[in-house]
């Protein structure tokens, strides 16, 4: 490999994909260091899958360039493919083959050295928790096992970079948790992992989070950085009844940057010199809304994301 120590595991410069008039990915720049777990967060259709597919060489970029493990995606796609593991969004192992047959097939395709083949298959089976079910047809397995087996197949050849496209969608919460434990075990062995998800809570498990909206990289950083830097103003949590009335009252209020319903309460973003908690509570009372509690809270990634996306939409409207 021609990669030096400071060579990023994944590098994208101006990566763009157009489907006709639709721009799925718009000049995306990305630099991911080795051993990082990077979360791609964004709504459906934001361009997460398209980006991952371009990085795996499955789609040809319309513009820009990318390299993975030091290999250029456009010029050396086969070298890239030999150095990555990929899990597509849709489950894609062979349902009419057994656990062992699937592993043996991918082991052959990735040319896992014969001497290590048995040991790696054993590892993949135990990682997926499928001991004793080696001869079960894969289509008979439940969601969580299928996903872990797919991961097992994708890492048989010990790739330095892993692309996981919404690996946990449709998987029950406990299985999701186990899956993330596996991801961190792999990261501990210096595997670089790029994982897309639309579960905000999963973003907290990542070293780096890349927020993507409408094909653009909106922000990238550690979860802490994103929470700290990107929220303009202070965040308050308001418990009150009725929520709808309160939201209406807040809409035109001076000093309120943003208000949104979060479950049974409101999250309200106040500008830096806007009203504080007690003032806000009083203002609400003036509008006939009795607030049970108003307190300043630390923003979650979801708050940041909602605000960033809203800001992007505003910019689009004004321009």
């Amino acid at each position, binding site marked *: 490999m021609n990669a030096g120590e400071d060579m990023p595991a994944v590098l994208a410069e101006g990566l763009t994909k157009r489907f006709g008039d639709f721009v799925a990915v718009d000049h995306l720049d990305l630099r991911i260091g080795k051993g990082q777990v990077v979360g791609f967060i964004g709504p459906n259709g934001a361009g997460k899958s398209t980006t991952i*597919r371009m990085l*795996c*060489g*499955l*789609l*040809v970029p319309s513009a820009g360039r990318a390299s993975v493990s030091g290999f250029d995606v456009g010029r050396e*796609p*086969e070298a890239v*493919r*030999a150095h*990555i593991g*990929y*899990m*597509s969004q*849709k*489950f*894609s*192992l*062979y*349902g*009419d*083959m057994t656990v062992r*047959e699937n592993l*043996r*097939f*991918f*082991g*052959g*395709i*990735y*040319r896992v050295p014969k001497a290590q083949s048995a040991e790696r298959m054993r590892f993949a089976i135990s990682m997926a928790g499928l001991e004793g079910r080696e001869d079960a047809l894969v289509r008979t397995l439940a969601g969580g096992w299928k996903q872990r087996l*797919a991961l097992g*197949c994708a890492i048989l050849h010990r790739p330095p970079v892993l692309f996981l496209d919404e690996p946990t969608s449709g998987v029950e919460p406990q299985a999701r948790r186990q899956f993330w434990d596996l991801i961190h075990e792999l990261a501990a062995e210096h595997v670089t992992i790029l994982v897309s998800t639309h579960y905000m809570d999963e973003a907290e498990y990542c070293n780096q989070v890349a927020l993507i909206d409408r094909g653009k990289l909106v922000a990238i950083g550690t979860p802490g950085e994103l929470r700290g830097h990107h929220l303009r103003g202070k965040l308050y949590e308001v418990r009150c009844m009725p929520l709808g009335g309160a939201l209406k009252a807040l809409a035109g209020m001076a000093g309120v940057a943003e208000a949104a319903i979060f479950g049974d309460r409101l999250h309200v973003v106040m500008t830096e010199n806007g009203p504080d908690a007690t003032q806000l509570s009083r203002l609400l009372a003036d509008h006939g809304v009795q607030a049970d509690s108003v307190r300043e809270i630390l923003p979650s990634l979801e708050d940041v994301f909602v605000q960033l996306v809203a800001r992007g939409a505003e910019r689009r409207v004004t321009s």
Partner: protein
Amino acid sequence: MNIRRLLAMAFKETLQVWRDPRSLAVALLMPVMQMAILGYGVSLDIRHVPLCVYDQENSQASRAVAERFVSSGWFSVSHVISRYSGIARAMDRSECIAAIVIPANFSRTLASTGSAPVQAIFDATDVNTTNIALGYAQGVVAQANAQISAQWDAAHGVHPSQVGTVELDPSVWFNETLDSRYFIIPGVVAVILALVGAQLTSLTISREWERGTMEQLISTPVSALEVMLGKLIPYFVIGLLDAAFCLAAAIFWFKVPFRGNVAALFLTTALFNLVVLGIGYLISVRIRSQLGASQIALMVTMLPTTLLSGYTFPIDQMPAAIRALTYVVYPRYYVTILRGIFLKGSGLADLWAPMLGLSVYAVVIIWLASRAFEKRL
């Protein structure tokens, strides 16, 4: 090309065919069923054409004419009638295809002039059958004429040696009993191999697209060539097994005389198999749904093999434009070769022209197939 990846691919594909009831039925049941249906069902020979006899004279001579038709084996009398309208009625009901009318003065005219007309009426709704029946009728009449004129000459003191009767002594080669089954069954083998081969391979790529497994497969370092060869190897073996079954059935069950050599048969069958599998694979690469791919595969194999291969419809009798078209369709070459090997005992040297045609076809198709598949979404 890496042999390990190729084997992994071929093994996987074999497992999947083995576990797919649909593919298995196409691979194993279809040849048996088609061989039975086409082998027994398709025959261009017509026996016992139903004949309506309207004998206006009913003399010994006139009855002898009707008797000749029956004894030829081609006709059997379905109606004996005494009115013209009976012919129309019988034909309307499709109870007879041919009718003969022997006039009331038949024997008198025959005795005085040495010849007498007999009217023959045919139902030409089914032109093919009628043509064949007409041929049979002319044969019967010609035979009768020869005999009658000989008798007449004898009666009038003309010695046969003085007139010098000309007799045609036909000698039929290669299919001595003129059994159309011998002619058709080698073609049936071609039809079955084309259908089965293209059907199976037409599913092989489209199945992976449909099930979503293709996205995973193309993210691996497997090459397009490894995918193609790995997928075709199992079907090639299946195709050869099916061919062995069909050819054995043709020789041992349908008793089609086999006069050529087995090596030539094997070689050409392998070539034909390559063409058919390549075509199925090409379709599968282009059409990403299994249903669509199998429909198209059916069309591009069924139509040319049944209509343009010369399997039932003789190529020599086609209009020039269609005849030219038969050179473009692959089954023509294989059918010609099969008939040559089976009935004439031709060797590869005799069959160089269709062999060349088939080889060129195989090379072009496999070349196209190897370039068709791209590892892209």
